[in-house]
């Protein structure tokens, strides 16, 4: 079953086409990486799919619900970890997690239990009572992702989850994300090639607002006619320019 069906999705900002007639199906419980350079249209795509930004054209179905006509149903099924850490700075780690569950309608007792589960699963116990603003960048990002996971979404959007993190923190996050595979559908945007290669089941390459190619890493290499993924990415991304 397809978790996401994108049909001719477009977003214009004035004359600029940020996303241009994007069509794509993503199977349930897949980790799909949208790979592209800065300005390729990845974040705009995520914003449209998460009902944050209204498309200029086209539509998409998330678990069968339209992102245009059925936004409340879509919002109840998804969660998003934005590009920058999205935490309440004056709340503790535990309070942030409970808050994240609460705004999805969970009662306080349920939220407290879910927060404890998340603290255990993501090894957050040492920072559970610390205010979010006092945490390091790596811990804040981990908390931000935990806040997206706590509602057990059917579709999880991770927008550049490891940007700005050091190598060790990045590897730890990859490990966390890999553990989520097959439990939910994950759409991850990144401009790190190694990130897409390391954790994604399928990869979509975006450039100039368009989806240039989509498939497994091996099929993308084959399509570009090279064994080097970086070279394959460059060839595919620059296809239109040539």
């Amino acid at each position, binding site marked *: 079953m397809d978790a996401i069906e994108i049909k001719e999705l477009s977003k214009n900002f004035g004359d600029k086409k940020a996303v241009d007639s994007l069509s794509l199906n993503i199977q349930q419980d897949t980790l799909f990486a949208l790979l592209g350079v800065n300005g390729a249209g990845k974040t705009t795509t995520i914003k449209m799919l998460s009902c944050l*930004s209204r498309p200029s054209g086209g539509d998409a179905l998330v678990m069968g619900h339209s992102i245009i006509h059925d936004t409340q149903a879509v919002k109840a099924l998804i969660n*998003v970890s*934005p590009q920058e850490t999205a935490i309440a700075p*004056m709340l503790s780690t535990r309070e942030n997690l*409970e*808050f994240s569950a609460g*705004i999805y309608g969970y009662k306080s007792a349920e939220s407290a239990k879910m927060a404890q589960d998340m603290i255990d699963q993501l090894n957050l116990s040492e920072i559970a009572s610390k205010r979010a603003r006092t945490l390091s960048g790596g811990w804040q990002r981990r908390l931000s992702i935990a806040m997206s996971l706590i509602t057990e979404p059917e579709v999880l959007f991770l927008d550049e989850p490891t940007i700005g993190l050091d190598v060790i923190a990045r590897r730890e996050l990859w490990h966390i994300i890999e553990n989520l595979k097959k439990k939910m559908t994950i759409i991850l945007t990144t401009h790190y090639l190694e990130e897409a290669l390391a954790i994604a089941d399928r990869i979509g390459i975006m450039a100039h607002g368009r989806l240039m190619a989509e498939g497994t890493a091996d099929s993308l290499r084959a399509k570009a006619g090279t064994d080097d993924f970086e070279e394959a990415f460059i060839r595919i991304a620059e296809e239109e320019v040539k």
Partner: protein
Amino acid sequence: MRMICFASRNTKEMVRDRINLMFGLGFPVVVLLLLTAIQANVPVDIFPLPRLTPGICVFGLSFIALFASMLISKDRSSSLVLRLFTSPMTGSDFIFGYTLPLALMSLGQIAVCLIVAFILGLRASILNNLMLVLTLVPSIVLNIAIGLICGTLLNDKQVGGVCGALLTNLSAWLSGTWFDLDMVGGAFQAIAKVFPFCHAVDAGRAALSGDWGSIFPELWPVIGWAGALLAIAIAIFTLKMKSDSNGKQ
């Protein structure tokens, strides 16, 4: 449930910001203490407590506008707002979630002012005190609405200037708390009468003194300002929040 959760978070964000809290609760009390000390050393009635206390309450509420605008503008400038907008929270969850804790903080601030005034020697019946609190409700709404508007339209540095400096000064100078507007007269008095602050103070003074017949002529302009600004605040908040999320790449 979503609204209560959001309101709880907003309360914690405001209460845990010690500088804001000290200014919001502490500064009006300091002014009350200072002016009462001055009064104790002069032979004429400049700042008698029954006239000063409602003025300090109205002045103190301008800090609620500062609280509201700082919180909203900080939320807007952070990525947290993206998390909130992608959740199933509705427009009314946002509006009431911001408004409810601010209303409770306003009542708390008024209570602190009245307790300090009582300690300093203010004697008024419980009923008159309750009437004062009721007459201040439109002022609470007014300041929350100003906070919503400023927080929605301005960044966190700008709200410091507009709500922290301009509004508190307007509220102070045009309220008739520090000096009798009749003594100044002319254009200054005419301008002051256009704004709601002096009417709010006069309505409060009437309530505290038990002159209930004089409350409503003074309260109508405050209710008018509060209602109009609240409607504008809700409209601006709803439109701006949509455009903030929709307009960025």
